[in-house]
Every structure is written in structure tokens, then in C-alpha cells.
């Protein structure tokens, strides 16, 4: 990677001793941060370390309680997001917020459309300029398409183009790769490199250290609202960085435990659902973790949804304990001892306004009730039991889960499903968007559950997670199973080849 930013130059944007407090929480404390033109500066830290607060201060959403924000060396006060945009700061979100019914060009120029002499929107010029802009980034995207149908990656491109159309000098990318497939990530990186060459200052906020070390010239680590270190990327290793983030060794990330694998509990034979997946077959055994790898959109979640009765398969068989079963609803699935921790925690996993306790008991209401009346003592007891075992922290049982961190929310979802005493547990991206410390805990929990005899189907887009956790790895590509590897066979390259469908041609 290239040399660290030219220290002699004046930073495009600089935070000096910035502090911010929300109620009892000191979100940021005396944080310094500088961004130079043409550098990619990575901001890393666990959830709750203060990254989003910092981003929101730069974006003009929050104002610091103390400290200065300097642009080109001059102190500036940003009173609103609009003002931040006006001085050339743009934010690219993980899930871009655009106008779904307007087309690409309209979104790019929303609010600052080119005008003709009469003050009318100059449509011709607008489309032409957006086309040129996208071309200069080496992107092929139809500017007449409504944004609604675009992938997350394309919508991010629209946001980037939008930032460039406003002559943004500072680009803040907040977890931009979280919802992208590996190929889309590659494309995004190419664009980031181009932006760097254009002398844009980029703040790259990410959980994924391998991305950080590929892209960034400097890295700043936040922990508990304070800056731990800022260093040139080549002076740091991922292991050191993680240590700075959590004060823990990287080796502790993926605890694995040997479990005795028993008889087949779940078998899927030639399962198909039109347009999403076809002819999927596999077996899942007691005490086994079967990793389900693949790119986003390979049909993994869709298989899980069928197994849990959310959707119906068109053909094929599902067998539980060797007997064919018909699963027409989540209730049916629960009856067969199947539990599903869904991909989208906020939409599918939790009722955010409900307390921790109420979320945990939501699927087992009959068990905490007598004559259909809920006994709160019983409810709190069961909830406390699971919250304690899973070490849910950050709130009393009676507080809404909305206030918890992602990791603790995920533990609540796990608790809810463990409370149903399942025999088959389907985990869909169980560690997505949660911080490294909580991730390690979730991994420990999963491995512990397998050791207790649960059959676990682990869907994950993170290869290291799949490889470290799974007894066997099943790989899907565009709706088909393209590989099945034992723990010893599986490695990054083989799984990746199968996931991209490359191994098919050679066979």
C-alpha cells in the first residue's frame, strides 16, 4: 500500500478534542481525527465504540459538546446535514436512502438539478452529466432505471455519484460492504481507489479488517468513545488492531469444540422452489454444525425459509428423524423442533418495542401461562434464565430490546429460540453487524449448543466463520448445491470456487 498521508499538508477535515455525551453515555471523549486529501482512513472499533456518533458529527447530524471541527484548517460549526453537504462532506450509507420511484439520474441530482435559463430543470444535461459521471467511475448503470429495482451495490453507486456531483471532498463510507457480495465489494474497492486518485478524502468505517487493511493508508481505532491509536496501516497487523479494539487475542475469535456427531435428524431431498433454488439435498446430524456457504442471493436463506415453513417448496421432501413431514407454517416447524434465527434481526427476529423478557418468551407463551393468562413471575424467571446463560448485557429484562447493542439483541433472539428447546437450529448470518467481542461469544454459544446435541445449520457469508465453525460445509451457487466438503477438505479457495460456480465447469 502507498505511503502514509503527507503530514505536511493541512488536513481537509479535522476533529480536535471532540466530546459528545447522550444522557448518561459518554459517546465520544476527546477524540482527534484528521483526514487528508487522497487518503483512505479506516475507522474501526466495536459496536458502541463511538463510530456512528463520530460519523454523525462529521455529517452534521450531531453537534459536539466540546472540541472543534476544522475544514482546511479553519474551525467550522456544522448545524445541519445540509450544511455538511454544502462544505463538501458526503456520507455513503450501508443501506442507501434514496427515492425508490425516481430514476438514477434524478436521485443523483436531487436537490441540485441543473437548470436552464428559465429556471426549469435541464433534463438533457442532467442525464448526460450523470452518464459521464458514472462512466468516469468505470460503472455501467442505466441512468433511466428507477432506483427501486437496483441492488444495494448499485444504490451505493448512486449515492457516490450523488456525492461527486456535489463536489464532495470528504466521503464517509459507513459499513459500505456489509450487504454486498464479494464481487460487489471488489467493484466498490476499484471505485474507492479511483476516488482516492481524485484526491477525495475517504473515511472508511468497517468491521471487516481484511478490507480495512487492503484499502486504508491509516487506521484509527476507537474504544469506549476514546481514540486508542491512529497509525499507518503498514505499522499494524489485524491481530494488533483487534487487540486495540477489545484487548483480546484474535485466536479467541472462533472457539471450536469437538462434538460427537450422531444420527441424522433432518434430511432434505431434492427440494425445489421455482426461481429461488432447485434440487437441494443434504443431511444434518445431531451434534453437527453444517455450514451453508455461498454468495448473497445464492438461495441459502430461501432454503431456510422453506424449512421453517415461511415459504413452501414446490417439490422435494423434508424428513425429520427419517419421517417425511409437511411444514406449512412456523408453528409446524416448531412442532418438529426446528428453530430459525433469521437474517434480519430487526424486522424478523425481534419486536423492538418489547422488553427483553417479552421477546424471549414470545414463542413459548403457553409455557409461561396458566389458563392462557401470563404469569409474569414465570415469564421473568425463564427470561432471566436464558438471558443469564447467554450473558445478555446492557439492560434490565423489562427494558425494550431496542436499546441494546446488536450483539446483545442477537443473544436475545438466540434466547428466544433456545427457549423453545429446539433440536434443529437454523442460524442465518448470526454474527452479521455485531461487534467482535459479541461475535466470539455467539460462536462459543453455537459450538456449545452443538456439543449439547443440537443439529445446527449455519448460514454465513463470512468464510472464516464458516470454515472455523462447521463440521461440514455445503456450498450453494445460484440456487444449486455446488459443493459439499468435510471439515478437513474445506478451505477458502475450494469453497469460494464452488460459491462462484467455478468448480462446475471443470467437473
Amino acid at each position, binding site marked *: 500500500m502507498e505511503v502514509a498521508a503527507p503530514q505536511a499538508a493541512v488536513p481537509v477535515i479535522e476533529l480536535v478534542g471532540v466530546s459528545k455525551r*447522550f*444522557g448518561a453515555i459518554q459517546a465520544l471523549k476527546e477524540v482527534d481525527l484528521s483526514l487528508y486529501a487522497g487518503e483512505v482512513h479506516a475507522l474501526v472499533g466495536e459496536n458502541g465504540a463511538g463510530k456512528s456518533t463520530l460519523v454523525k458529527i462529521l455529517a452534521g447530524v450531531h453537534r459536539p459538546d466540546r472540541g472543534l471541527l476544522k475544514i482546511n484548517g479553519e474551525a467550522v460549526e456544522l448545524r445541519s446535514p445540509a450544511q455538511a453537504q454544502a462544505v463538501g462532506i458526503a456520507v455513503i450509507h450501508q443501506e442507501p436512502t434514496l427515492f425508490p420511484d425516481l430514476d438514477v439520474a434524478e436521485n443523483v441530482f436531487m436537490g441540485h438539478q441543473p437548470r436552464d435559463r428559465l429556471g426549469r430543470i435541464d433534463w438533457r444535461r442532467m442525464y448526460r452529466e450523470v452518464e459521464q459521471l458514472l462512466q468516469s467511475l468505470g460503472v455501467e448503470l442505466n441512468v433511466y432505471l428507477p432506483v427501486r429495482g437496483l441492488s444495494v451495490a448499485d444504490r451505493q453507486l448512486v449515492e457516490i455519484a450523488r456525492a461527486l456531483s456535489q463536489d464532495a471532498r470528504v466521503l464517509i463510507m459507513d459499513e459500505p460492504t456489509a450487504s454486498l457480495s464479494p464481487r460487489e465489494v471488489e467493484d466498490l474497492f476499484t471505485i474507492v481507489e479511483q476516488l482516492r486518485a481524485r484526491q477525495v478524502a475517504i473515511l472508511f468505517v468497517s468491521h471487516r479488517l481484511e478490507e480495512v487493511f487492503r484499502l486504508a493508508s491509516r487506521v484509527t481505532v476507537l474504544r469506549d468513545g476514546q481514540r486508542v491509536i491512529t497509525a499507518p496501516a503498514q505499522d499494524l497487523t489485524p491481530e494488533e488492531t483487534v487487540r486495540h479494539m477489545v484487548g483480546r487475542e484474535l485466536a479467541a475469535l472462533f472457539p471450536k469444540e469437538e462434538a460427537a456427531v450422531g444420527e441424522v435428524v433432518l434430511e432434505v431431498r431434492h427440494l425445489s422452489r421455482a426461481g429461488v433454488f432447485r434440487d437441494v439435498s443434504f443431511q444434518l446430524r445431531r451434534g453437527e454444525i453444517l455450514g451453508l456457504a455461498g454468495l448473497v442471493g445464492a438461495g441459502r436463506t430461501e432454503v431456510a425459509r422453506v424449512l421453517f415453513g415461511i415459504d413452501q417448496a414446490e417439490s422435494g421432501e423434508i424428513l425429520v428423524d427419517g419421517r417425511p413431514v409437511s411444514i406449512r407454517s412456523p408453528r409446524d416447524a416448531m412442532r418438529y423442533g426446528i428453530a430459525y434465527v433469521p437474517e434480519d434481526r430487526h424486522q424478523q*427476529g425481534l419486536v423492538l418495542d418489547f422488553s427483553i423478557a417479552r421477546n424471549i418468551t*414470545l*414463542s413459548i407463551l403457553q409455557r409461561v401461562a396458566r389458563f392462557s*393468562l401470563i404469569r409474569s413471575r414465570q415469564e421473568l424467571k425463564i*427470561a*432471566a434464565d436464558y438471558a*443469564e446463560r447467554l450473558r445478555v448485557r446492557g439492560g434490565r*429484562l423489562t427494558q425494550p430490546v431496542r436499546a441494546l447493542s446488536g450483539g446483545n439483541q442477537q443473544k436475545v433472539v438466540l434466547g428466544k429460540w433456545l427457549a423453545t428447546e429446539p433440536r434443529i437450529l437454523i442460524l442465518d448470518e448470526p454474527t452479521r453487524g455485531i461487534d467482535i467481542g459479541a461475535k466470539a461469544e455467539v460462536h462459543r454459544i453455537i459450538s456449545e449448543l452443538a456439543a449439547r446435541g443440537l443439529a445446527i445449520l449455519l448460514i454465513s457469508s463470512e468464510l472464516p466463520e464458516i470454515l472455523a465453525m462447521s463440521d461440514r460445509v455445503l456450498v450453494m451457487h445460484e440456487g444449486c448445491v455446488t459443493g459439499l466438503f468435510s471439515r478437513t477438505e474445506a478451505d477458502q479457495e475450494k469453497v469460494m470456487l464452488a460459491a462462484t460456480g467455478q468448480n462446475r465447469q471443470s467437473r
Partner: protein
Amino acid sequence: MSDSSEVKQPALDLDASSAAAPSAPALAKEDRRAAASGGGLARLLAWMRSWEALLLVLLVLALALGSALSPYFLSLSNFSLLISDMMEKALMALTMTLIVIAGEIDLSVASILGLASVVLGYTWSHGLPLGLAIALVLLIGALCGLVNGLAVTRLGLPSLVVTLGTLALFRGLAYVVMGDQAVSNFPPAFTNFGFGTVPGTLIPWPFVLFVALALIFSLLLHRSTLGRQIYAIGSNKEAARFAGIRVDDIKLLLFVLSGLVAALAGVVFTARFSNARADNALGFELDVVTIVLLGGVNIFGGSGSLPGVVLSLLIIGVLRNALGLADISGDIQNIAVGALLILSVLGPNVVRRLQEAASRRRAADNGPAGGLARGAALPAPEETGAARARERGQRH
């Protein structure tokens, strides 16, 4: 399931055995204690900022208005009348509360009431024994609710549209049954239930019915598994479905219940006025929806309580009664009710804005957060952001 005992309790007791970790019941106890001792004063303060407290103030204002407008207002017999007058709306507000909390709405209740009334009159006047006629009417109410519920759950139509349609449809059917005729020669035993009071008191009989139903519904909503599921559905339908809750079945049940109770209200109405006409209770749905929303039930579902709704019931009742005593016609009264409806939707937003602003000020002052009352505890920044986003994006 021979091995279920082994799989049971997939205990993650890695730490549970260590002395440092409090045992589960201890934690629960701590939780309760903390909740109880959260400072009686702090809780009182939090409550004073709550919607129910505001309703109480409104009720006092309405009572003051009433006594100022008429010397007859503050009398027991007037209150007996006032309560009597609210009974149909009160009954329908019970089921409406559940439906709105589940994220739906039923605008057809007053039309079901009207249909029930004329069917009762028609069948009675054509010789059906009154008991059978009432049973038939209740069945028809439930069927009307079933139609609403099926259209919403099986066809996936928005309940606002469905019940707006059936509002017209059921009222139309009522006219088909009886045109503009009326039946009024009901037996005294029946009308006594409507006019009469519990012997020795001024408590109207329908009020006894309401209190009984209100208790049952409170238990249902606030204590039962069904109630919990209703809140879950209203808060997050998808998460409810993923948790194995039978979302559609519960919604269907609620619509059927709503139709049934509306028909029951029709029986009460017919008894009270000894009159079965197709235009009975015309426009009552406005009051019912107003009562529920003013009672603090979120129009988007997921929150609200029956005590709040009962308070708001009293407010609307007192207001209409006071205005009536002052010789203000029903149509003009509607202005006041309409204004309250808007207030009830606007109010919570304003209250929240004010709380947010206050918190921002506090945050800016760097004030100690320990003294914050529980209810006023400030949402974390992400939280308000998310809440706002949710409001904005109430989907499509």
C-alpha cells in the same frame, strides 16, 4: 422425541456455576425490586408525563365545562343518563382497541349495529321469539366480522379500505331489510334492560354489561397470551410470524369479535330506544375511533391500553352530554369530537417532540442523567432516529 430430555435445556452453564454470576431467580428478583423501588416519586413523575395523566386533566376540564354550562350537569341522574348514552360506543370501543393495537381498523361497526338492530326488529315483528332473534342477530354480527376478516387476511386488502366498503354495504343491507320503516313494539322485559337501572341504584343495566365485558377484555389484552400476541402483531407483524404466531388467524378472530360486539351493541341500542331502524347509530364509528385514539392507542398499532380508552370514553361522554345540556346540537358536537380526534393523533407526537427537545437541552447542559425519571429517560440517539425512520416509512 425419546431424546428430548437430553436436548432439553441446552444449558450454557459455562459460567452459571461460578459464584460471581447471580442465579436466575435472583436476577429476576433484582429486576422486580429495581422496578418497584425505581423511586416512587420518579415513577409518579413519569406517570404525570404520561398520556393517561393528560387524559385525566382533560376529563376534569370536561367536567368543569359541564358544570359551568348547566346546573343539571352535576347530578346523579344526569350521570346515569350520560353513561347510558355512551354504552354502544363503549362496547364497540373495546373491540376497536384490540383491532387498532393489532394494526388494523374496523370502520363498519356502526353499520353492523344498524343491521343488527333492523334484523332484530324485523324477525321479532315477524314472530320469532326474542331470544332466538337476539341469537340470530349476534350470529349475523359475527358473520359480518368474518367477511371483513377474510377480506383482510385472505385477500390481503387493507382493513381501512375493506371496512370502508362494508360500512356502506352493511348499512345498505339494513335498508334492504326494513327500508325506512321502524319497529318499536318490543316487550317491556326487553326495553327494561335498555331503560332500566339496577334496583335501588341509578346504574343502568347496559353499564353492568359493559363493566363485565371491559373486565374480560382488559384481562384478555393485558394479561393473556392472546393479548401479548396482539401487541406483537401490531408492533412487528413479520417478527410475530417468525415467532410462530398465527397472525392471520388472530386478526380474523378480532374482526369476528368486533362484528359480534357491534351486533351486541345493536341489541342494546334497540332496547334503549325501543326502536329498530336502518339509520340507527349512523356515524358512530367516528366517535368509536376517536375514543380509541384519544385513549392513547397508536393508530399504527403496537401500543395502547384499555384503561386509557375507558378514560377517553368518559371524556367524550361528558363532553357530548355537557354540550347537549347546553342545547348544542349533535352535528355541532361533532366539531368538538373531530377536534379531539386530531388532537389525539397530534398530541403524542407533540409530547414526544417536547421530551426530545428537553433531553437535547439536558444533554447540552451535560446534566447528570441519574435524576431522569424512568418514563422520561431519553431514547438513545440511534433509537429516536430509528423511531423516526419507522414513523416516516410506515411502509409504502
